[in-house]
């Protein structure tokens, strides 16, 4: 059981370039999330999904897009990268079961936009 995996681990982009951050989970979780962590800060929710074909915005969605075509995968797309998107990106998943919705995190992707 690999849990939540993310690729790549590191990436440097030039301003205006695009890229996709990959996230896969093998726990058959319905819910998946993307967070960003800026230096010295906590994580902030970018987008989330409650199942295949369903996505919704979080707190900081501008400049990003997501899709959820399968239960396992939840890629995050950056279009026209900007220096403000320099951050560490975490993907997470959860079962969605009550009473609480524990989220399991991937190892993160460190992205630098120059």
């Amino acid at each position: 059981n690999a849990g939540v995996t993310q690729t790549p681990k590191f990436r440097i982009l030039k301003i205006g370039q695009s890229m996709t951050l990959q996230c896969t989970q093998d726990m058959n979780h319905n819910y998946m999330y993307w967070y960003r962590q800026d230096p010295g800060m906590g994580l902030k929710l970018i987008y989330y999904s409650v199942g295949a074909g369903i996505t919704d915005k979080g707190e900081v969605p501008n400049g990003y897009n997501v899709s959820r075509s399968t239960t396992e995968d939840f890629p995050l797309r950056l279009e026209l990268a900007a220096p403000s998107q320099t951050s560490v990106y975490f993907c997470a998943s959860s079962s969605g079961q009550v009473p609480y919705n524990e989220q399991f995190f991937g190892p993160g992707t460190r992205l630098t936009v120059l």
Partner: protein
Amino acid sequence: AQTVTQSQPEMSVQEAETVTLSCTYDTSENNYYLFWYKQPPSRQMILVIRQEAYKQQNATENRFSVNFQKAAKSFSLKISDSQLGDTAMYFCAFMKHGATDKLIFGTGTRLQVFP
């Protein structure tokens, strides 16, 4: 809107001693969950302990325990018998009951354990 505040950017403790990390939160909700996450230098986010707001008993996980004061909206983490491996960033987080999405994180406390 809910907010989570961690007022201690950095803490240090000697090995085998006890340390307490502070967290306060603001919410108008009555049912919610609180979490402490550990983030070691590897960056991996690891759940340390969780507390359901409807439970009066404080949660305990081995050397980790919480002091949950619902009226004061306070949720501190106590680490007993500190170990070098406890060195990490610690994040307090809030989730509304029934929310499928929103973990609200504090800004974190960097804990250094010295030999």
